[in-house]
């Protein structure tokens, strides 16, 4: 049941890259950071809920319940929901940043201050 250590390292790597990108002043890089962060969170749910390899939660023919230990389908449902929502929200963010770039003509959070007033 224990999670693949490489997967754990991958998640850690994704989180650190995401934070690094989000700390940049550039709007575009911040957006990339958010994309990485959302993927990191999805993978984290996957690993935290326990990875069960090769045992899908399917009920065999003629039985009422799956046999033996199977992968937790609820965690997969969470991830699926989170992927869909994340995709929608990030799509909005991409359009917003594009629009903001057209209107404000900046790619730097520091220069946004003047536009606020």
């Amino acid at each position, binding site marked *: 049941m224990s999670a693949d250590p490489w997967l754990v390292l991958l998640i850690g790597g994704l989180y650190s890259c995401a934070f690094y990108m*989000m700390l940049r002043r550039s*709007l575009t890089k*911040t957006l990339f950071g*958010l994309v990485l*962060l*959302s993927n*990191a*969170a*999805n993978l*984290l*749910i*996957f*690993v*935290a*809920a*326990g990875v069960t390899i090769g045992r899908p939660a399917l009920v065999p023919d003629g039985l009422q319940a799956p046999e033996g230990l199977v992968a937790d389908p*609820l*965690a997969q449902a*969470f991830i699926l*929901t*989170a992927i869909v*929502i994340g995709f*929608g*929200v*990030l799509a*909005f*963010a991409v359009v*917003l*940043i594009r*629009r*903001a770039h057209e*209107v*404000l003509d900046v790619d730097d*959070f520091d220069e*946004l*201050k003047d*536009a*606020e*007033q």
Partner: protein
Amino acid sequence: MSLLVALPFLIPMVAGSVSLLAWPSRRAQRAIAVVGTAGQLIAAVVLLVVVWNDGIQVLAAGAWPAPYGITLATDLLSALMVLMTGITGFAAALYSLPTISSRMERNGYYPLMHMLLAGVAGVFLTTDLFNLYVWFEILLLASFALLAMGQERAQMAGALKYVVLNLFSSAMFLSALGLLYGLAGTLNMADLAVKLPALDDGGRVTLVSMLFMLAFSIKAASFPLFFWLPASYHTAPVAVSALFAGLLTKVGVYSLYRTFTLVFTEDVPWTHGWLQVSAGFTMVVGALGALAQTDIRRTFAFLHVSQIGYMLMGLALFTPIALAAGVFYFAHHIIMKSNLFFLSGVIYRLGGSYRRDELGGLWTARPWLSLVFLVPALSLCGIPPLSGFWGKLLIVRAGVDAGSGWLLAAVLVTSVLTLLAVMRIWADVFWKAAPQDRPVRRAPLPVMLWVVTVGLAAGTLWIGFTVEPLWALAERASAQLLDPSAYIEAVLSPELP
């Protein structure tokens, strides 16, 4: 088992969908906006009455019992918050009619408003943490679009900060959900409340709870991650910023109230200690920020942050009277603060500016309006006998009982700073003579603006003069929060049909 629990978000969802179908007709959309928000308000009133008389109401969606299905439940706190959603939504819909530009109406303003209201009501009603996440995203997406709709420079800059910080908060929320699910194997809050104390986790749950606190605190705009609020609220159309001011931060504060009374009570001195620190700094820093502003809407946005501190303090002290005071403050604040944003829009209409230094002479030109403004403004400062006075008195009383000296000092300092900030607005906008080049406009105001602002001011006066009904409700809500056994019982073993 009662469908009534779902009505507060089903009605705006249906209204929003019908509104989308009526896309070509602005008149139909406006009519649906009023009818839909009025329907939500009526459902909320009925729900509160039923919860007050018959106790916690539960709806297991699809008759799947908790923790396997999604269960909705209303205790008094939820019902009260849903009622506040109904009031603010209805007021914002009425205010939108004469103020929202036809371009925004054609771009889907009303359907988005309905979706926002559905999301907010959903947050207050769900018992499942993952479901809570979904509702959060629904309301966030609607709020993103409402905020960025005008596409002006300031709106774009404000919306960027708002979107980025809220997406970050959602990602933290999602990470916390994953970790908690890994620890406990469930995300139903009532089920967690039963299972977590039995878990020998060596403090890992407390660690995860801090991640939840971070995520909710960003949404609640508490110190130190509050700066998205003053950057964005004042850029939206007035009806939208009033709606945001009434509801959006409250969903964050509500989530903190719900999770840190029901689920994460394992290590109260640690978790609620941090909440105390956050509450104190939020109050003082918000009020100091307000003093530095000349734009009245930005001033109110900073004062809004400062008030979040009072609500957090109620939760952080974690005593019956403190929680009740927090709940009381919630209700009073939503009515008072959304009214101040509505009124700042009226001031803009008359004076042609949001800046204190460019306004003036409203007292001589519009005495009645000035009186209406005084009600929420003095309530914000906590002048008796208005609602804000009782809210502050109760919070201070809770602080004294808990012996929390430095938080009390923060409350009192903040009160003085708030008074200063509001009186500067009063002196400049109302008492100062109008600038030569900018006389106060004489044109009569649309009736709806009077209806909304006078109605909400009457609400503030009513809370202030008859404290007892709301206080009794807040006390019972606080008792339910501190002894969640009835809530857990109702959620985990609902009567199935």
